[in-house]
């Protein structure tokens, strides 16, 4: 039986400031070493100042993952030397000998693919800085450090080895991403906002840790590779060593990391500069009350209240950006239409964060579109064109319909005139159409072309058949 466990690090990118100081939590736009202060740089004499919202958001995550939360939390020092650590220790949480459970969440669970995945522990900790390498060759390479990221708030989520295969892992990560985004604690799409390590064992054998995985895509690959590697060793009756391996992104394999990692001695002890913090039931109740609606509840609501198809509701509820758009745009009567428009057309058009960021589409546009389609002012085909334009320039629908000449032609006499025109242009087709029904469709297409998609397709077909004397 394959057993896979995960250790996920998630940045709380929705916070304004770092975990222990007032520097910006999102460091991405800064020049190197300009988002720093004496605290996150560990300047002698500086003291950490715990971010209240970080504790709240971490508690939210713990509750959303059905964890126990302790009455008091505390922080510990994990001591080791590394250039990306300004203090040469990391302030983190831990269950150390002699202390009761002190990290933000314990023993939770989440269901993935109908299987219960147990969450062992959730803890708050600070991110280290980043190492950059400069220099052409191995010999001239210089290790440079940018501390902008040092102190960024992280939530570490540790699962039990309950995953059975890489696909299972992937689904969990997607669910977790959606959950975190929905809770408004993190934007998982940001570069580096979510990282994960895995541990893999087969047939109850040695557990192998895999580190240095840079994306969820790679995680699936790494786990898959590792399972295969272990299986092949087992087949040849070779012992699987318990060790830490690194994911080599270039060669797409896991390699044994230097055993230095196993020798680490972290000398965990209490971080005396951060007092213990009481997390009373009052706080938890308040958080519970203000907790955003969960994805599953939202999905149920979409189905029961708006009558939206289950599959559509599933897709829509899982996506924060589009579910918010839906909530703003719909007026209950057009809910199904809006939902379909989003899932069928818009999701495809705004499939990346960059596209969403520059999109000028607003809820008002959607409700206008839905209304116009319903009242036959515009065909579905034209609506698609309109959407494209709206996304680009945000102009009101009426303007765009004028600009692009997208009005819906459903007036019989106008259409008949156009049909007559087309039939005279396509003489051969007109003759053949009486015998071959396929050709009728071709003619409908020509009418659509001539009207730039504005002609009502059904009416066109009816009128054409009438004109040609074909049975309706």
């Amino acid at each position: 039986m394959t057993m896979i466990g995960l250790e996920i690090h998630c940045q709380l990118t929705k916070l304004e400031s770092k975990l222990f100081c007032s520097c910006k939590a999102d460091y991405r736009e800064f020049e190197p070493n300009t988002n720093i202060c004496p605290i996150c740089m560990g300047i002698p004499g500086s003291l950490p100042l715990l971010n209240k919202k970080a504790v709240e958001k971490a508690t939210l995550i713990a509750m959303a993952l059905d964890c126990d939360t302790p009455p008091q939390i505390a922080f510990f020092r994990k001591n080791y030397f590394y250039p990306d650590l300004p203090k040469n220790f990391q302030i983190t949480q831990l269950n150390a000998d002699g202390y009761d459970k002190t990290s933000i969440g314990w023993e939770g669970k989440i269901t993935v693919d109908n299987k219960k995945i147990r969450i062992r522990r959730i803890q708050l900790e600070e991110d280290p800085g980043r190492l950059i390498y400069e220099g052409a060759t191995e010999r001239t390479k210089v290790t440079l450090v940018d501390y902008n990221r040092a102190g960024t708030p992280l939530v570490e989520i540790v699962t039990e080895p309950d995953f059975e295969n890489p696909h299972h892992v992937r689904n969990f990560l997607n669910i977790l991403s959606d959950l975190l985004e929905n809770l408004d604690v993190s934007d998982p799409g940001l570069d580096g906002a979510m990282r994960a390590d895995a541990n893999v064992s087969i047939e109850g054998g040695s557990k192998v840790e895999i580190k240095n995985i840079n994306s969820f895509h790679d995680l699936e690959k790494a786990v898959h590779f590792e399972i295969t590697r272990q299986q092949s060793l087992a087949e040849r009756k070779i012992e699987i060593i318990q060790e830490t391996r690194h994911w080599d992104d270039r060669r797409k394999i896991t390699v044994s990391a230097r055993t230095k990692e196993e020798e680490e001695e972290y000398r965990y002890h209490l971080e005396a500069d951060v007092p213990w913090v009481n997390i009373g039931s009052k706080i938890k109740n308040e958080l519970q009350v203000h907790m955003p609606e969960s994805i599953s509840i939202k999905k149920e609501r979409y189905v029961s209240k708006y009558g939206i198809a289950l599959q559509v509701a599933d897709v829509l509820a899982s996506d924060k950006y589009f579910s918010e758009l839906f909530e703003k745009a719909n007026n209950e009567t057009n809910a199904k239409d809006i939902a379909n428009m989003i899932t069928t057309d818009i999701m495809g058009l705004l499939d990346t964060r960059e596209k969403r960021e520059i999109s000028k589409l607003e809820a008002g546009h959607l409700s206008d579109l839905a209304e116009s389609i319903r009242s036959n002012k515009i065909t579905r085909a034209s609506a698609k064109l309109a959407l494209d334009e709206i996304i680009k320039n945000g102009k009101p629908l009426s303007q765009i319909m004028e600009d692009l000449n997208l009005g819906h032609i459903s007036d019989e006499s106008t259409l008949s005139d156009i049909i007559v025109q087309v039939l005279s242009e396509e003489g051969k087709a007109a003759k053949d159409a009486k015998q071959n029904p396929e050709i009728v469709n071709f003619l409908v297409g020509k009418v659509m072309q001539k009207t730039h998609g504005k002609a009502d397709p059904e009416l066109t077909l009816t009128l054409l058949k009438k004109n040609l004397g074909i049975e309706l």
Partner: protein
Amino acid sequence: MKNLVTEEEIAQVAKLMKIEIEDHSEHLEKVQKMLQYFDILDEANVESEKLEYVGIEMDELRDDRYTPYDKKLLKFLKTYKEKYIKAPKLS
């Protein structure tokens, strides 16, 4: 007879703490004596003692606000090309 900490163990710990001790014997002797003195801790009979801590309330914590540090901290640090901190090569 209490086990004295060996020279090897001390060398190992020194390496962990990134401390060079060339004059092993002076430090070795003093550290051994200090650790030997710490054996007295065993006589205190405090096994059953529970560690308790007074906590502070959530509203005593810092508000989540971004305030850029107003001084150029880099001026006080050892910088490389005025932007980065240079670290020795990692093995």
